[in-house]
């Protein structure tokens, strides 16, 4: 069973994948909740436009999304140059860039899931909280947020899974640098390009299956546990 043992390079790819996906989900969550709220509750000009932009990464070929990120967030890109000059954040050819690509690709899934759960919230409960003296912020924190928690978790799991499997946008934006931007997916791709890499690819494939299954089970478990509390009538 020696062939199952992971070597150092493969461990690096796994660790990097987990780091990139976790950071991508965590960093995009607050914005995801905000955008979902805007789309579900907001009435403003350009709402369909915002909806379209949010969903674009779902429809566009990932390579196109990656290329757009390269143009915008690359060192010479307008946003990338600004961020580097003022905040010292560099995306191009760094793991942070991989996280950005994963966050963008997973964003529509995150927003969709949260938005659906916001639509399902009974607004009469929010009115009731208001008459009891809670201002809109407190109503959101004490009533809306707990009620949409299952949707938030489902969205996080979906976007995490998307991030784990993200390949096209990442490789276009930040390339495939071992130790910096080489995630499980790009590592498997690399293995399949070299003679005798099949075993490595198989090992990483098993790991990918394991992580995906664990994420799925965790989401089922949490959805069940919270759903039991939140479900009513």
């Amino acid at each position: 069973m020696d062939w199952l043992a992971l070597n150092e390079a493969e461990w690096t790819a796994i660790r990097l994948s987990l780091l990139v996906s976790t950071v991508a989900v965590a960093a995009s969550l607050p914005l995801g909740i905000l955008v979902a709220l805007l789309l579900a509750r907001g009435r403003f000009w350009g709402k369909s436009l915002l909806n379209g932009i949010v969903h674009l990464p779902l429809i566009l070929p990932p390579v196109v999304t990656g290329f757009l990120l390269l143009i915008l967030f690359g060192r010479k890109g307008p946003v990338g140059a600004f961020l580097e000059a003022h905040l010292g954040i560099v995306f191009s050819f760094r793991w942070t860039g991989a996280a950005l690509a994963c966050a963008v690709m997973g964003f529509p899934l995150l927003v969709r899931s949260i938005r659906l759960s916001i639509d399902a919230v009974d607004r009469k409960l929010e009115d009731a909280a208001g008459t009891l003296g809670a201002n809109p912020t407190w109503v959101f924190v004490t009533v809306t947020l707990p009620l949409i928690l299952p949707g938030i978790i489902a969205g996080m799991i979906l976007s995490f899974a998307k991030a784990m499997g993200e390949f096209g946008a990442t490789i276009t934006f930040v390339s495939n640098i071992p130790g910096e931007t080489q995630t499980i997916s790009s590592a498997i791709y690399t293995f399949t390009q070299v003679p005798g890499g099949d075993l490595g690819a198989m090992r990483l494939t098993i790991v990918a299956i394991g992580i995906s299954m664990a994420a799925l089970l965790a989401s089922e478990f949490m959805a069940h546990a919270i759903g039991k509390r939140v479900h009513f009538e």
Partner: protein
Amino acid sequence: MTLVVEVRHRLGAFRLDAHFTSEGGVTALFGRSGSGKTSLIGTIAGLIRPEEGRIALDGDVLVDTARGIFVPKHRRRFGYVFQEARLFPHLTVRSNLAYGRWFAPRGTRADNFSHVVDLLGIGALLDRRPANLSGGERQRVAIGRALLSAPRMLLMDEPLAALDEERKAEILPYLERLRDDTKVPIVYVSHAVHEVARLADRVVVLNDGRVEAIGAVADVLSGSLLSAAVDRREAGSVLTGVVTAFDAPHRLATVQLKGCELHVPNADIGTGKSVRVHIAARDVMLAVVRPEGLSALNILEGKIESIAADGEGMITVRVDCAGDAIHARITELSGSRLHLHAGKPVYAIVKTVALDPR
């Protein structure tokens, strides 16, 4: 306490144009569905922003469209009990009850948690979740939640409408205790005559978005102020009296009104208790001679005070029985056969009496 409400508001084709004042106690907003009761109470609570109008409680202006004032609902401190309980499903009963307390301003925060819990009989439910409560229990918790937010006033929008008769009977006594124990003024929306007769001090009758009549509960429910046929059919007399005796073997209570006595079955509420009596006008027959061999227990002697015809073949006869006005709703035909006219002595035969402890 004085609540002044004056609103004009349009909802699609429906126009609400209502004006009334309330001086504390229980004010009922009474009318059929679609008469604008819920919209009106919604503007008082701040759930609806009226197009035009003024709402003030004791000089504290909550809405004044002319001056651009609109106090949002969370700053009004009006407890609202909805038709459906609207409990927070993710919180236990205890946390639901405590919810309003978190937001009540310091100093007004009520320290009467256990008192309210006892009053509503929900002590055994505190650690349960709303999903595991019956409809009646939920509504009691909702009432408690509104009370514990230290409200300046309670607004109740048909709190019993979603419940079956048994649950209604379960909650009504709690509402009466609420009215008598806590001194919180209540605005109570209902389309049920017997609820209004039991609970209200004053009644505002709404019809098609307008106030049709305002008055003391006994005056309004006697029917002359009600224009809608459905409401008139439900009209009746609301009288107050004291229980003077209880005949245990026959389970009959004797209620002394101003001048006459009523016998009410199955009303073991203790002698000396003051009670409110509701007699539906359709449950009263009239006779010009003292009837003999009749099963009815309550035959009251009186004199016709006035007769009002409704134009649908029915008349409402107001009979003065030694100081108490009893209304009888009979057909116009019987009226002319018996040659009824004001001043004529008659006997009112009361078939059923609804009795509520006060």
